[in-house]
């Protein structure tokens, strides 16, 4: 150890550099090993390696790995949902595929409106709670703790579970869906917004505070202008997610297209399932595209001085 004191600064750097490199390498190796072990464990718990007795095509039964046996069934299922479409009678075949189009279009509108109303609820709730839920802005520890727990509960419970609860309270219909998705979106958006809040420049807040501003003044003048572009971007993203959520939430009776899924499944109307799938796919694609354009416009406008 006495020798190190006589090292030149460059030699000392080389020694420290070699040490930190070696440390980084061993940390990486350990991390990779740990990750692999965890992956194998979860795969095992998730029945990836399960061996079960299955019926083979020739009628005999044998022990097999379930993954290679199950995969072909996926093809069978998809095949059942493909409707009969012939070129010479395409119009009639399509009409038969989408035979309930009036109902479905109406329910599609309901689905999008549920998503819209739920996003509005989520924005209001998430926005207001995101300020006390940000570590750098919370007026005190109680406000931070309370608002964080509220957001956690709101987003940890899946929207489909909230929907079950609200259907019980407010009966079957879109109101339950709006409340369920809105509450879940409050939790998710509030968390995202509060993280945006935690990354802001705190100096403008000092400026407002030094001029005699209250906590609310600091938020309104110091924080809101800084975070607004991010809030708009996250909100549009959440609207896309909410459309997906509201298209399935009817499964438990909370309005929208989901109830048709349930009917089609229980009546084994496989082509109805594919028709509904096409409707939702097209809707989500259109909304994704439009909101992405809008988001980029918002970001683009912000990028200009």
């Amino acid at each position: 150890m006495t020798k190190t004191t006589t090292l030149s600064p460059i030699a000392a750097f080389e020694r420290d550099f070699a040490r930190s490199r070696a440390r980084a390498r061993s940390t990486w190796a350990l991390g990779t090993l740990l990750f692999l072990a965890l992956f194998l464990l979860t795969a095992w718990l998730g029945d990836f390696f399960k061996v079960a007795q299955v019926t083979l095509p020739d009628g005999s039964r044998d022990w097999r790995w379930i993954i290679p046996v199950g995969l072909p069934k996926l093809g069978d299922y998809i095949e059942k949902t493909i409707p009969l479409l012939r070129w010479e009678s395409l119009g009639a075949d399509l009409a038969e595929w989408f035979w309930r189009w009036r109902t479905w279009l109406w329910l599609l509108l309901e689905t999008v409106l549920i998503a819209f109303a739920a996003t509005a609820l989520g924005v209001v709730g998430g926005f207001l709670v995101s300020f006390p839920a940000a570590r750098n802005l919370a007026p005190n520890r109680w406000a931070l703790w309370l608002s964080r727990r509220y957001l956690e509960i709101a987003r940890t419970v899946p929207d489909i579970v909230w929907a079950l609860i609200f259907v019980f309270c407010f009966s079957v219909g879109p109101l339950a869906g709006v409340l369920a998705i809105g509450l879940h979106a409050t939790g998710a958006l509030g968390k995202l917004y509060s993280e945006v809040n935690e990354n802001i420049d705190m100096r403008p807040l000092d400026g407002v505070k030094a001029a005699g501003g209250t906590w609310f003044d600091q938020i309104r003048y110091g924080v809101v202008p800084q975070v607004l572009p991010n809030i708009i971007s996250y909100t549009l993203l959440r609207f896309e997610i909410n459309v997906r959520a509201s298209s399935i939430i009817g499964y438990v009776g909370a309005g929208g297209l989901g109830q048709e899924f349930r009917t089609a499944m229980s009546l084994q109307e496989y082509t109805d399932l594919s028709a509904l799938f096409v409707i939702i796919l097209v809707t989500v694609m259109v909304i994704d595209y439009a909101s992405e354009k809008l988001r980029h416009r918002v970001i683009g406008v912000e990028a200009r001085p």
Partner: protein
Amino acid sequence: MGLLRDDETYISMYQPMLSLSGLGRSFGSTRAVDAVTLDIGTGEFVGVIGRSGAGKSTLLRLINRLIDPTEGKITFGTTDVTALRGRDLRQWRRDCAMIFQQFNLVDRLDVLTNVLVGRLAAHGFLTSMTMKFSDAERTLAIEALDRLDLVSQALQRAGTLSGGQQQRVAIARALVQKPRIMLADEPIASLDPGNATRVMDALRSINRDDGLTVLVNLHTLDTARAYCHRIIAMRDGRVFFDGTPLQLTDDVVRDIYGSEGLTEFNEAVTSTAARPVVIPIRGTA
């Protein structure tokens, strides 16, 4: 001008207004400000110097009550500033305007709104949240901007302005507070010499024409000498020197900055004034 007594205590000719007694602030085990006792008079232009970490910024933030002291007392006239809470505290912050090294404006709001932030202490919740300001307030803000030669930028976003312009916006914001004392924390440390001069001249005009007390942290000695009636030097959180610029001799300066290893201390090296400077480089031998 101040006089020097035998015990080398600075005696101000000004009516004492702001008094700090035994003021201290600790961060963990660090004593950022330690037993500072000072009287600042009405209409004084006081410069606070000292090396980085000497407690200059903390001292100003304590006076404005952006941070709370761990001990000691601040009085302004007959008011015990250290005891103020809630609304009274906000009124004190309005009376005791502050400008910062990094300007602390809201970049994404226009200049006019940034200046009007200085009026928030007089606003209720609703008019503040809706950014609703009266015509009289806007007039006041435009007059302040005009004084600082910034009216033509009033509707621009503050973030698009140059550093010097932003600092003048911050001064305008401080002016519409109608303060009784002006604190400036390294106001010219991020500015080029031209802008630094304009900002310091603006502070001098506020001091001379409006009779406002100005307390300014500076890291350049020649600026302090050129503008201040009185210079306070801090070292390790304590007041190390308190006197007129003339009393600030080279020996005192060397002690303030504790320039170990530097045999010759050249004030011009740190200067922001526009004049040629020869920078001494430490010998390689």
